[in-house]
């Protein structure tokens, strides 16, 4: 990951935030992320985020669970240790179905949770830069990434016109790093430029 420059603006209301998000996209600025205290319906669409592939991953995990359960049980009862249980055949499919179902659900659920955490970079022992302490409390925080083509002052003026306040510029690590939120780290990554 890389250390990048950002312009950060705070919004009080989602009614102001929504038009601002649209303006950012039409103006062509690079939107790093928008932090909200609650899930905002349609914000992902307004930000132009693509549809998640998490469900496709879930389907694959589920199929893996199905295959694992069926093949393992068939192997155990047919090859490794065939037993006569109540005169039932060695491949009693109906008896396998509940376990197959459970394993499908287990694989899909656990796999999807872990994939979700990976995609959101959430994990114990992993830290990300917090742009504003109230970003998940009661403020909407919009973060615009500065590239070679964008001028910081121009972006600040733009955010001001769009209704943001507490606009500031930060230089921070864009990705995650090893660390703990309850311990301050002397890492260069996370220090705002003008804080």
């Amino acid at each position: 990951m890389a250390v990048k420059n950002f312009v950060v603006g705070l919004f009080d209301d989602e009614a102001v935030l929504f038009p601002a998000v649209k303006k950012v996209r039409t103006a062509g600025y690079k939107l790093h992320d928008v932090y909200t205290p609650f899930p905002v319906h349609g914000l992902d669409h307004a930000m132009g985020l693509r549809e998640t592939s998490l469900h496709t991953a879930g389907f694959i995990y589920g199929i893996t669970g199905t295959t694992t359960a069926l093949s393992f049980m068939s192997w155990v009862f047919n090859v490794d240790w065939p037993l006569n249980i109540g005169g039932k055949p060695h491949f009693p499919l109906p008896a396998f179905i509940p376990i197959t179902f459970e394993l499908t659900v287990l694989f899909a659920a656990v796999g999807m949770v872990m994939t979700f955490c990976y995609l959101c970079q959430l994990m114990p022992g992993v830290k990300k830069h917090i742009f504003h302490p109230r970003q998940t409390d009661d403020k909407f925080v919009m973060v615009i990434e500065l590239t070679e083509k964008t001028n910081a002052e121009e972006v600040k003026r733009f955010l001001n016109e769009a209704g943001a306040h507490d606009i500031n510029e930060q230089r921070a690590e864009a990705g995650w790093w090893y660390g703990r939120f309850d311990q301050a780290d002397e890492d260069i990554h996370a220090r705002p430029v003008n804080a």
Partner: protein
Amino acid sequence: MKDQFVVPARLKKTSFVLMGVGLLTLLIGLIAFQGENATRFWAGLLQNSSFFLLITLASTFFIAATTLAHGGWQIAFRRVPEAISMAVPALCAILFIILMIIVFGGKEHIFHWLNAHHVAEDKILTWKAAFLNKGFFTTATIITMGLWIFFTLKLRNMSIEEDGWDLKPETGRKLIWRNTVWCGGFLVVFTLSVGSTTPWLWLMSIDAHWFSTMYSWYTFASSWVSGLSLIALFVVYLKKHGYLTYVNEEHLHDLGKFIFAFSIFWTYLWFSQYMLIWYANMPEETEYFQPRVWGEWRPIFFLNLLINFITPLLFLMKRDTKRNYTSVAFIAVVVIAGHWLDFWQMVGPGTYKHLVFPWYELGLGLGFVGLIIFLVANALTKAPLVPKNHPYLKESIVHHT
């Protein structure tokens, strides 16, 4: 905004043609199935009329369940299940006539518990005679059908009456309260009938020796998922013809989720019924599955699972297919056809035993489809398509999944 449905000439023609096909099949059946073969004549009628009655009754259940759950999303198309439920009285009458002819006409090949000598010699049927006798059968049928018709008409009439009310907070509260009370009452009746005794009497008593406590729920799941598909079909039809302005993919998505979820629910019950009988392997229980799994009906048994589980599971899994009008209409037709097949394999093996091409049953089914189209289209014209005074209407308009 087109709020008043007018029956298009083409739909009317289609319904008449389908009803004609049904009547013609009935006539041919009357001539073709005589004497020994009359069993198939009555079994076909019993299967079709009970199936189509239960899938229209599912609309009343839909209204009751969503109202009781304080659901708001369905209000934009609530008049559609209401209109479908208006077919319940006519279909009740048809099934009632058929059942009475079977019971009092001594059609012992359908219900062999009707034969008094047979019952006297048979220990199991003697025990069951307190439940399986003509008097109880008739009384229970009259009471359940009467209550279904009463509650269905009540819910519909309340909804139409409320169109004339003022839109005030007090009237809104009153509307919600009385709807909740009546819907609660219907659900009690529905649970004790479709969820409990009614399928035992009408369908399970074909195999009078056999019993399954899952049977009623299995029948309910089958009719409920097909009933949802029927609602979805009418919603898509109306939307394609420019009605139901407030309905969009979001509502369709939720209907699609319902069809998806209850297809899996049906499979759960199908499997629970099958596995317990398979595991215990007791002759008095396995006799039901003998002709279906190991006899002539084997292909239908697996086709049933393929159409009603694998197809909706894989087809409706993707979000896009649940939000597309054409694909939801397609899967709705598949699901209805699939559960018609399910009812066919519930009735057929116990009555006329042999697997034959179901031209007669299909023809009757088309007749019932025509009848339902005719009755529902007629009911749709009777009221505006949007219940404009319902307090949850706004919630339905802004509905977002």
